[in-house]
């Protein structure tokens, strides 16, 4: 290998190495930016077999469908305090996005 080709080869490898390091550096913030996923509270439900869960569009209320106990728990997201509403074996629950109302809808709810 001539000196010229050798130097070109070394230069190419150096550029590749620098580029690789740069890409790793650019990628680092994204790699480290995972959510903490820290458990901050555990709230007992009013009754058994909570399955479906939904959050109101404004984020202030959490609805939990408790199938066996026949209830929907309505939990204040800030205080973690809940109220129970009777419902016939609810399974899933969703909230309708409405600017004035936070309407929960659940299946088999009476």
């Amino acid at each position: 290998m001539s000196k010229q080709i050798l130097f070109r080869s070394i230069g190419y490898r150096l550029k590749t190495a620098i580029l690789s390091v740069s890409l790793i550096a650019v990628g680092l913030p994204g790699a480290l930016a995972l959510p903490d996923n820290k458990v901050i509270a555990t709230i007992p439900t009013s009754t058994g077999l909570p399955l479906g869960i939904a959050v109101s569009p404004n984020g202030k209320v959490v609805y939990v469908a408790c199938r066996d106990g026949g209830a929907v728990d309505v939990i204040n997201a800030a205080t973690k305090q809940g109220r129970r509403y009777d419902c016939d074996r609810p399974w899933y629950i969703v909230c309708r996005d409405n600017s004035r109302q936070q309407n929960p809808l659940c299946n088999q709810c009476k």
Partner: protein
Amino acid sequence: MATLSVGTSPNQLAVSPDGKKVYVAIEGDPYNHTVAGGFSIIDVASLSVNTIAIDKSYEYTYVVFSADGTKAYLMAQQGDVVTGFGIIWEINTSTDQLVTSFGTTTVYEASGLSISRDSNTLYAATLPSGQVPQLIALNAFTGDLLADIALDTNVGYNAGDTVVTPNGKYLYVTDSQGGNVKMLNTSTNKIAGKPIPAGSGPYGIAVAPDGNRLYIANYISSSVTVVDISK
């Protein structure tokens, strides 16, 4: 409060992005093949219900809307648990008509259907026969399998439910038997971070609209786990 009759064994339900319609997945009675499953459409303003019967072999369990509301996806599995193969129907929401179906070889004993924020990818928790629970990602246009991710080492149970964060970066899936929740990076379709400890039997899962809190319903320990996912 209103009570509406929507069909035999209503399952999961979803609200259209404009809030005008609710689709309800209807199981029917696929075990005795006596009542067809399908889906019901609730007109929110009038509370009228229109039920679309599809067939007597499948139990229809999950439904999601695309972000623009023009499509919905309805997931079902065969009532015969021995076969248990599933199907996903694409629905034209302007006509409420079935358009096409896919997933008959990939959607097995499936639950927890969700869709990416760009509406290009469908996710579901599945249980392939004799295997460990998986999370699958499907191309929402073609049904092609994009990824299947093992969620646990225990064979023979289904994972649970799924939810996509508002920014679309992550999907959380409950591992009901493992007692934890796993987080998927939706750009790589790989599990990211450590499992989040939940109560016993985590199943239902929801994320706050601001993306700061995750709520998990634990059906065995009868509790809700609150997780800070803000950073």
